[in-house]
């Protein structure tokens, strides 16, 4: 971070803007988690942070280090790919556990198993 002063201002501005956008999306997602009523609605909210939210942060990181080191820095693409491939696993585990619980408790608002 000591090289921060070497960063041209357009890149600094753009990085800051992207970081803020990503952080805002994560915040809105957390707010939704607080606001929605049922489990199935709540599970939608944090996906804002885990998709476009993290996307903005990673683009900001790529831009910052690419400009600073004057060469393309592309590691972050791997983080994106791994996020996309692994989040469905956690989400499915959570959703199926909730569905199983609701079915055994006999709640009417979930569809029966086929």
């Amino acid at each position, binding site marked *: 971070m000591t090289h921060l002063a070497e960063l041209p201002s357009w890149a600094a501005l753009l990085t800051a803007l992207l970081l803020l956008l990503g952080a805002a999306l994560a915040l809105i997602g957390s707010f939704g988690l607080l606001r929605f009523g049922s489990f199935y609605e709540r599970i*939608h909210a944090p*996906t*804002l942070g885990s998709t476009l939210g993290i996307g903005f942060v990673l683009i900001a990181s790529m831009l910052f280090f690419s400009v600073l080191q004057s060469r393309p820095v*592309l590691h972050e693409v*791997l983080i994106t790919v791994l996020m996309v491939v692994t989040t469905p696993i956690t989400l499915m585990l959570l959703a199926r556990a909730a*569905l199983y619980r609701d079915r055994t408790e006999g709640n009417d608002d979930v569809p029966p198993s086929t």
Partner: protein
Amino acid sequence: MTRWLPFPLLTATLLAVWLILNESVSPGAVILGGVLSIAAVRMLMPLEPPEGRFRRPLAALTLTLVVLGDIVRSNNAVARIILRPGIRNRTSGFVRIPLDLRAPYGLAALACIITATPGTIWVEYDSAGNTVLLHILDLVDERVWIETIKERYEKRLIEVFE
């Protein structure tokens, strides 16, 4: 080819991951990465991963672009729903979607797409009836959603993976 190098695409992907992590394409990195990828795929073999095929990279590319667009749009839509003051006049619910896609990697890709677009969650897959149960945050018309998933994603996934 299959005997000496099973899953060539997976091996190539692992090698690419190695090279990106090392940020170098020097002969040393390529050789070490190549040996490691081949060994990793060999070690995967006892798990007997299902056979898959991958065709039409161009269709895969269009699908990726379509999905990227949809991610941006659905993020915007869900953010609006969260920030909108009146939360009552919105119904969320489950939709069961009959699928034609049966390729295991295609289904995995569909699960990633559906999870990556906020507002839709993959809940349960029924392999006997080949249907998938989704939960949708802003459910206006079931038929529209079934058509969207089938037309936008499933058709292209069948092209690529079957």
